[in-house]
């Protein structure tokens, strides 16, 4: 989230799209309702299905799954043609005025530089023209036909009401209603926010859906303000932290890039990843990338990381350039028999991964699996699953008992980036120990074997700093936490505007501003540097309830990265002189010599000060919000493409049916049935309040299971009537990849759509069930879903695919 949960109360219009907040984030929804109670905020729900969220919103607008970019693209078209944008903000705080290279083009759904054989773009033309100083050229009038603003206008001019209505199945009246109401926040004293969840990320166009909304928020001046932002209501307790700490193939802790094979030295890696800006008003904060990288290597390899050995850079594994190693790639390779061992910690991929039949087949090809969890699940017990003969499965499986959350100390980060400390309330039962301790013990045992026997590339294992136990040899979370924050590794004098402070070797680094690239500091994750002060105070434990701004920032409750900033890009809440755009919600204000309010995005004066002032979006090389975003793999502007599996044979907007940059998996179990009469209904998947994700924790709890005991499919009344399906009867839901049996719930919550003049029915199922427990609860919904992901992130497309429903 750019903002945080309590801040939802500060909004005037809340668009909930891609989320069923009332059921999946009930306590977050409390703050949404408070916005309604306190500000008279308008609440809008756009979703294929009518849910409890719809019931509490002012109104619900159903749209066909997978058409969010068309819907939002129509809103951009509306904002631009009706002059609803916040011009002062757009001119000063976004790259709207930048002049794009004349070689850039867009034609029939494709941007310049596409290579159909590789399904990838060469982005050489997605660039700005620069002046003789190397600074992007700008037209502050926004009239130049080659400026971002005009190109954006042209790009979305095709997203007319008629076209968008025909694609999404949303009536023109509903489209206009949402567009008018939401774009009314494009004024200084109104805030509009958007809440999304897996309903946006689970598409082959997921990242671009979110980018489309980001463009809207920039046009309306809703980024960086109280009650604004683009807010992911994330679905796992520490998914923010697990992402920050990079249990992911593509990044290292702190969002440092995973090194590719072509960058074989630290120098090359830093050169490539340290952005440059010739604009003196751009803070370009990532110019500090080398400091974050070297401090990370120092935390990983300790004294073994020295300048002479590139701080151990060569010991890090390198990924092949342009190759992804996501969960879907892992199971694809496993299915080919190329993966031998697997760690499965606190997760249940045999239920939660797409194309379950393929995943379960792949697991049978493993030599060994190490599971760590508090309950058994369908992954650990795959060898005795439905249709599997244990006597034919060679896999050795270890299932290690883990401590539950309240049985261990440590921190957890919510999606508002609040990092909160948890205390240990009780001992773990019998032989259970924290996952942290299991990790330490396994790695210590591996280290001991390498020390004794040698082996392949032993250096990273032997040189790994791994002293995170207490005097009794138990996992010490506080020790790890301080290592993540980082230390001064030698006595250091820091000069802050003439004030010199001596920090002794061994003191915790109080801010990432003090990290160094020479090996004199460590930080396991630079964004967390500052979670301890220099005296070792753990700010994550703070429980102060003061709220000086009255906006619910609670600056002394826990710690929010970065540097306790509660709303990021907050300098954009003020005009170029540092005065709040909205005097009613003073998030930040420049008083002539300093900022007052939230922790500002950097100490510099506001940008009207041409000598010392900086632009507000300090993490962007150009310092401004990116309406034109060349970082995306499928184009600098979002474009509507159909899901991999959908009801149409042609994209109504262009000759490109599906996202041209998605990777197509090609195993014999990766079948696709687009616009196939055998699978005529659009299907989506979701959760419920009582279960959590795959249900691997909640299905073992009697109270919760009693509330939601088994799998069901929701079917609209008209479709049920056509198929002769009664409410409560047993049905089979089939896709080209697999099928599940479940109960039919005939409902008004799904209504048919009219798409390109034809009636399209949509159905939906929860994804919370598996065969292991309860015995009659039904199996994984993901038997139906395809192995395909978003082109940028490889989040699987769980939210739009095609099925049939058959009465049993």
């Amino acid at each position, binding site marked *: 989230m750019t903002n945080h949960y309590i801040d939802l109360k500060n909004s005037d219009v809340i668009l909930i799209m891609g989320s069923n907040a009332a059921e999946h*984030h009930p*306590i*977050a929804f409390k703050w949404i309702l408070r916005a309604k109670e306190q500000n008279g905020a308008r609440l809008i729900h756009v979703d294929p299905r009518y849910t409890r969220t719809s019931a509490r919103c002012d109104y619900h607008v159903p749209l066909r799954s997978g058409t969010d970019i068309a819907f939002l693209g129509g809103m951009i078209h509306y904002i631009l043609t009706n002059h609803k944008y916040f011009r002062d903000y757009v001119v000063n705080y976004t790259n709207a005025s930048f002049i794009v290279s004349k070689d850039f083009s867009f034609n029939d759904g494709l941007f310049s530089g596409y290579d159909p054989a590789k399904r990838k773009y060469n982005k050489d033309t997605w660039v700005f023209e620069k002046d003789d100083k190397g600074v992007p050229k700008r037209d502050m009038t926004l009239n130049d036909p080659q400026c971002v603003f005009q190109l954006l206008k042209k790009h979305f001019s095709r997203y007319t009401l008629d076209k968008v209505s025909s694609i999404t199945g949303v009536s023109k009246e509903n489209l206009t209603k949402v567009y008018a109401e939401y774009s009314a926040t494009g004024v200084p004293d109104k805030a509009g926010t958007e809440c999304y969840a897996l309903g946006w990320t689970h598409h082959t166009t997921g990242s671009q859906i979110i980018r489309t909304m980001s463009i809207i928020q920039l046009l309306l001046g809703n980024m960086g303000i109280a009650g604004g932002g683009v807010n992911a209501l994330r679905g*796992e*307790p*520490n*998914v*923010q*932290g*697990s*992402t920050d700490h990079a*249990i992911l*193939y593509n990044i290292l802790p702190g969002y440092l890039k995973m090194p590719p*094979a*072509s960058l074989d030295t630290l120098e090359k890696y830093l050169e490539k990843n340290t952005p440059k800006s010739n604009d003196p008003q751009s803070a370009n904060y990532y110019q500090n990338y080398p400091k974050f990288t070297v401090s990370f290597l120092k935390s990983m390899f300790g004294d073994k990381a020295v300048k002479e050995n590139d701080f151990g850079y*060569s010991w890090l*594994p*390198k990924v092949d350039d342009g190759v992804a190693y996501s969960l879907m*790639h*892992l199971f694809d*390779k496993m299915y080919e028999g190329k993966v*031998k*061992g*697997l*760690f499965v*910690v606190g*997760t249940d991929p045999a239920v*939660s991964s797409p194309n379950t039949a393929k995943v379960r087949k792949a697991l049978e090809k493993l*030599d*060994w699996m190490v599971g760590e969890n*508090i309950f058994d699940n369908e992954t650990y017990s795959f060898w005795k699953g439905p249709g599997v003969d244990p006597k034919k499965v060679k*896999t*050795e499986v*270890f*299932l*290690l*008992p883990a401590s*539950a959350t*309240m049985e*261990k100390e440590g921190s957890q980060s*919510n*999606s*508002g980036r609040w990092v909160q400390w948890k*205390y*240990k*309330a*009780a001992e773990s039962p*019998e032989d*259970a120990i924290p996952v942290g301790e299991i990790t330490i013990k396994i790695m210590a045992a*591996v280290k001991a074997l390498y020390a004794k*026997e040698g082996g392949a*590339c032993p250096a990273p294992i032997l040189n790994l700093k791994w002293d995170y136990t207490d005097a009794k040899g138990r996992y010490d979370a506080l020790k790890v936490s301080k290592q*993540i924050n980082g230390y001064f590794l030698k006595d250091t004098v820091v000069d802050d505007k003439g004030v010199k402070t001596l920090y002794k070797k061994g003191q915790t680094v109080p801010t990432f501003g003090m990290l160094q690239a020479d090996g004199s500091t460590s930080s*396991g994750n630079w964004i967390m540097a500052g979670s301890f002060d220099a005296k070792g105070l753990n700010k994550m434990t703070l429980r102060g309830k003061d709220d000086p701004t009255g906006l619910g920032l609670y600056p002394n*409750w826990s710690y929010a990265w970065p540097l306790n900033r509660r709303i990021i890009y907050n300098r954009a809440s003020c005009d170029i002189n540092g005065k709040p755009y909205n005097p009613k919600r003073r998030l930040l204000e420049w008083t002539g010599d300093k900022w007052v309010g939230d922790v500002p995005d950097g100490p510099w004066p506001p940008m009207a000060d041409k000598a010392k002032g900086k632009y507000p979006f300090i993490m962007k090389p150009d310092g401004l919000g990116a309406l034109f975003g060349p970082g995306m793999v499928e184009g600098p502007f979002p474009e509507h493409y159909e899901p991999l599996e959908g009801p149409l044979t042609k994209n109504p907007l262009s000759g490109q049916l599906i996202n041209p940059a998605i990777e197509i998996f090609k195993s014999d179990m990766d079948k696709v049935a687009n616009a196939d009469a055998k699978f005529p209904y659009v299907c989506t998947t979701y959760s419920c309040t009582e279960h959590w994700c795959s249900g691997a*924790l*909640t299905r073992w709890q009697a109270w*919760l299971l009693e509330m939601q005991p088994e799998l069901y499919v929701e079917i609209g009344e008209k479709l049920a009537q056509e198929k002769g399906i009664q409410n409560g009867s047993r049905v089979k839901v089939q896709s080209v990849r697999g099928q599940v049996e479940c109960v039919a719930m005939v409902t008004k919550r799904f209504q048919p759509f009219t798409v390109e003049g034809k009636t399209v029915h949509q159905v939906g199922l929860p994804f919370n069930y598996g065969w292991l427990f309860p015995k009659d609860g039904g199996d994984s919904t993901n038997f139906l879903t395809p192995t395909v992901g978003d082109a940028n992130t*490889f*989040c699987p497309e769980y939210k739009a695919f095609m099925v049939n429903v058959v009465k049993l």
Partner: protein
Amino acid sequence: MKISRRGFLTLSGAVGSGLALSSLGINLKSLRAYADELDKMNKVKSARQVTTICCYCSVGCGLVCSVDNATGKIFNIEGDADHPINEGSLCAKGAGLFDLTEANKYRLKKVLYRAPMSDKWEEKNWEWALNRIARLVKDTRDSGFVTRNSKGELVNRCETIGHLGSSNVDNEECWLMSLKARALGLVYIDHQARV
């Protein structure tokens, strides 16, 4: 009758659940249930109270665990009324957090092992399991290690071991796993953030 806020919450919880169950036609022996709840309320007052954060969605609601001073066991978990986000309230899952403690009979409490071709779990001790796991990790890594890729570039990686999970453990544990995976040279590293 003097009643603290926390006492009131516990009491109203007792009344609420009584109503819900009686509506199902179950004989509650209501007086006894009421007495039990009062007893629990007294226990809460004298218990050691430890704060924690909910382990389901990412809102980050606060909870208070009440721990019996004599046994060291958790006997009650409820919303933290002082927490600025949830202000004491919880959803159905959070309100049921107690069912993740050892009171849940399905909790794993022993190291389990399934041998090749076997149709059952068997109990093992930690030492045996750690030694066997380390052996398998090392043998798999050593035999499949890729020093250079097809272009001849130095890659120092192990493609034959994958690592999945987890966004359901603490930051410090995530960081340790992230480093463990990199030190082993793994590249197939992923978790729920993507799915």
